[in-house]
């Protein structure tokens, strides 16, 4: 089903990921313009990209007694983790590294952002920045376990941790159809680990920007880019996990992968603007008391199907 990696996939994957992230940013800019009643022109989706030269030329920040080593390590970790996580995501029939434990790899790379963002919050030696780092960890403790169960559910049905096998197991019906709870929890998890929209608590305005409050120049560019790359990576992973991968009529597999990824991205960007920031102290209890039992029950369904010889 999934081919071994041609050499060019290593280069194409990050470029493709960046392209998806840019699409999401552009769509977000169009939505923002509509809310602000600005006329939507051809340049509207591209205007946020002016941030890139703006941050490149901006002076790096220097504060009293920073931990520069951890600060820089953390800032770099976030986009790097996003790019590494795409290694196991098949696009059409091509995947960079078809690991037998692809799902766990994706999960591990996403969890790397915990360390990255905590370090990015600790580094500047500033109150609200550190509060932002703690908030990400608190949010992580809330979203991570439900997300793990959500990742596990399709793997149980496919009886494999290889992402290509999971996509192939959906030849009859998409997992999103009969694992709706896992799908929704997974999508919420994607927004949470890219700390966007309702899960932008670590960079909340109530703590003066939190994690991003002290970041300027390239630091800020890497952190902001990391958010959107993580969102794109999460959306791309949703396709083989829940939406049948590259399978689809008429068009070649890679177009179906692209169309489905863009659809998930559009949904997440739209949701991002529809909700206020969810405070982690409230979300933790919801996650542990409601979402974990729900996702455990959801994981039980494919487990019973497999035990009952549904394969």
């Amino acid at each position: 089903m999934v081919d071994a990696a041609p050499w060019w996939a290593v280069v194409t994957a990050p470029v493709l990921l960046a392209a998806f992230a840019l699409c999401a940013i552009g769509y977000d800019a169009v939505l923002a313009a509509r809310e602000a009643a600005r006329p939507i022109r051809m340049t509207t989706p591209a205007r946020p990209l002016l941030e890139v030269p703006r941050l490149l030329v901006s002076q790096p920040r220097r504060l009293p007694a920073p931990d520069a080593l951890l600060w820089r390590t953390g800032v770099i970790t976030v986009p790097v983790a996003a790019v590494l996580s795409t290694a196991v995501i098949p696009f059409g029939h091509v995947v960079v590294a078809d690991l037998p434990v692809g799902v766990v790899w994706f999960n591990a790379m996403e969890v790397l952002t915990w360390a990255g963002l905590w370090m990015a919050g600790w580094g500047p030696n500033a109150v609200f920045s550190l509060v932002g780092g703690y908030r990400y960890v608190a949010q992580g403790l809330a979203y991570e376990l439900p997300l793990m169960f959500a990742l596990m559910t399709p793997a149980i049905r496919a009886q494999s941790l290889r992402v290509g096998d999971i996509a192939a197991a959906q030849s009859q019906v998409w997992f999103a159809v009969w694992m709706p709870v896992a799908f929704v929890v997974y999508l919420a998890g994607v927004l949470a680990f890219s700390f966007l929209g309702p899960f932008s608590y670590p960079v909340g305005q109530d703590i003066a920007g939190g994690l991003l409050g002290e970041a300027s120049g390239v630091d800020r560019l890497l952190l902001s880019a990391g958010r959107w790359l993580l969102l794109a990576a999460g959306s791309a992973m949703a396709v083989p996990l829940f939406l049948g991968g590259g399978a689809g009529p008429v068009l070649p597999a890679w177009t179906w992968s692209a169309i489905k990824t863009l659809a998930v991205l559009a949904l997440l960007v739209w949701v991002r603007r529809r909700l206020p920031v969810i405070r982690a102290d409230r979300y933790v209890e919801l996650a542990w008391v409601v979402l974990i039992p729900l996702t455990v029950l959801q994981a039980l369904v494919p487990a019973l199907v497999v035990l009952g010889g549904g394969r």
Partner: protein
Amino acid sequence: MEMAVFWVLAVPALAGGVLVFRCGSMARATFALLSSLICVGGEVVLLGLPYLGVVIILMMVMEMVVMAVFMIAYMMNPAGLTPMSMVHNKRGSAVISVAVFVALAAGIFLVPWPRRAGSPPPDTTFQVGVSLMGGQMLTMITLGFVLLATMVGATVLATRRGRYDRFGDDLDRRPAHDPAGGGVGR
């Protein structure tokens, strides 16, 4: 090739371990330990156990971040802005750690390792699962519940507030009287 990867991971793993004791800053010590453990995870992948290796990375990142939170909450001078030492009882700890290292290293050379019979399966995850869970399913399930009960019990014992503080003397106050409300409204 494998040898090269082994050394590329082994040297930073050791260096990270040494750095844990050289850093004055709790945060740096924690992440030095994390980098060491990530390298160990890579070594386990190299041994042909990708599941265990990647899970080590995943769990260690989470654990070290949570540990960093507690280290910084409860240690004096967590940023290491003034000189401090991570080592107590220097002589004793040196003796113990050298002894353990020598014992383990001697084990590597002295144990009569069996010769590989046949070829490794393409996907070792399943074998790991069977050997962990196959014969010991009951043990693993019991262990899991014991661990969970220990954690819950420790938390309940540690907290000062009980249900009478929350729900009143007749346990009929709704919503509960909490310093900070939760998300479900119990």
